[in-house]
């Protein structure tokens, strides 16, 4: 079972029209699909994913692609995506603060 995010990358303008106030996780990337930041919209987020992605874009104007998953298991999925990124690249995305995380070695 793949644990990678398979949602398509979207440009910011298109994404802004589609994002809603759901709980979930998201990734922001540069034009080469290099992940710059992994975030989540949790129980305290104003306007859910729409609000969180909007805030993150203000901090990271260089991001031009975004993709997301709507999920109520946002915290465990967020940690899984961070661990997966660290497994693939040896470190967290540049704009993520360090966090106590476990170690994953996905099958695929």
């Amino acid at each position, binding site marked *: *079972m793949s644990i990678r995010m398979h949602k398509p990358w979207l440009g910011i303008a298109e994404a802004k029209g589609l994002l809603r106030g759901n709980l979930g996780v998201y990734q922001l990337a540069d034009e080469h699909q290099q992940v710059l930041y992994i975030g989540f919209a949790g129980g305290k987020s104003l306007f859910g994913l729409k609000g969180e992605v909007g805030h993150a874009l203000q901090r990271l104007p260089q991001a031009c692609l975004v993709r997301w998953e709507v999920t109520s*298991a946002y*915290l465990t999925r967020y940690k899984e995506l961070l661990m997966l990124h660290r497994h693939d690249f040896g470190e967290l995305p540049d704009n993520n603060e360090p966090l106590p995380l476990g170690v994953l070695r*996905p099958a695929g």
Partner: protein
Amino acid sequence: MQLELTAEQDLVIATVRRFVREEIAPLEFDLDPDADELAAADKERLITKTKAMGLYGLDIPPAFGGPDIDLVTRTLLAVEMAQHRAGLYAPCYGTFGGAGLAQLFEATEEQKEKYLYPTLRGEKRGFFGLSEPSGGSDPARAIQTRAVRDGDDWIINGGKLWISGADKAQYGLVFARTANDKGRNGVTCFIVDTDTPGFAVRRIVHTLRSAHYATELSFDDMRVPASNILGELNKGFAIANDRLTKQRIPYAAGCIGVAIKAQEMALEYVPQRETFGAPLSSRQSIQWMLVDNEIDIKQSLWITLEAAAKADSGENFRKQAAMAKLVATEAGGRVVDRCMQMFGGLGVAKDLPFERWFREMRIRRIGEGPSEVQRHVIARELLGSSLR
């Protein structure tokens, strides 16, 4: 069984109650409603306090440096520690320490030095790897992970499912089949370092539980020295059974704590909330929900304390522990459900803890032996060998 608390019990319970209300609950205002961890600085500060209270490492026997407190009192403390939003699966966010299911009290001195003492000092974490994709209710028959002897080592192949905390653990207890016996006599418990080649945490298993997610593990030609067998060869199932039986009492206590907190919130709310010109508390249907909650709470508390008292007396407490786990997990679910109903929309919103308790409480009827398995254990104790 003594029905009144001693002055000493009263004092220690009041201390923990104050700690939960004054130190833990206020931190939850700023945390995500699903959070299972405190900021490192907060956790460190609070551990200093629980150590100063002499209550750090509550599930550790005094011989290993834990506080000398009987199980009845520890059960009452576990009831208190669960009375906050994350309290069911992260009581007080781990600030009271402890070893959980990965206790190694029958370890050799060498194993204790390497695993037990660092765990008790909070330097290492362990996981408990019993359940597999083939089934967790009847692990003695379901375990397919195999260990084969190779000189002084064992080579383990297979996998585990639902294992809590394995991604953050330095070691774990892995139960594997070491003989052709298809039941409980062919299972051995190995202590496995998580940096052993061939060990991998493949994924998080996302469930209703926000805290301490479960994981899936795989073992590919994982070489473990024979000196890492915990207890005796082919006698690992008794270790698993022992852990699970003991764990049923604090497991039940956590459910009771959450139920008590939910009921307390409902008792505060219903006299204030008005519908159709009268407070909710004036409606008989609301009163009956509160009454049913109270009965559910008291029944499960007494059954759980009876199990703890039986364990304290050194007698066989398997039946009582299974009854406590069964009754408290089911009653806890009913109480939280009724409280949600009384709070209306707020009851299901993330603004209040009910929705998290509701999700996590549902797991309690499955985790560490489903309700049906507890009934099976109780029936076996009642009917004896005729049922085996």
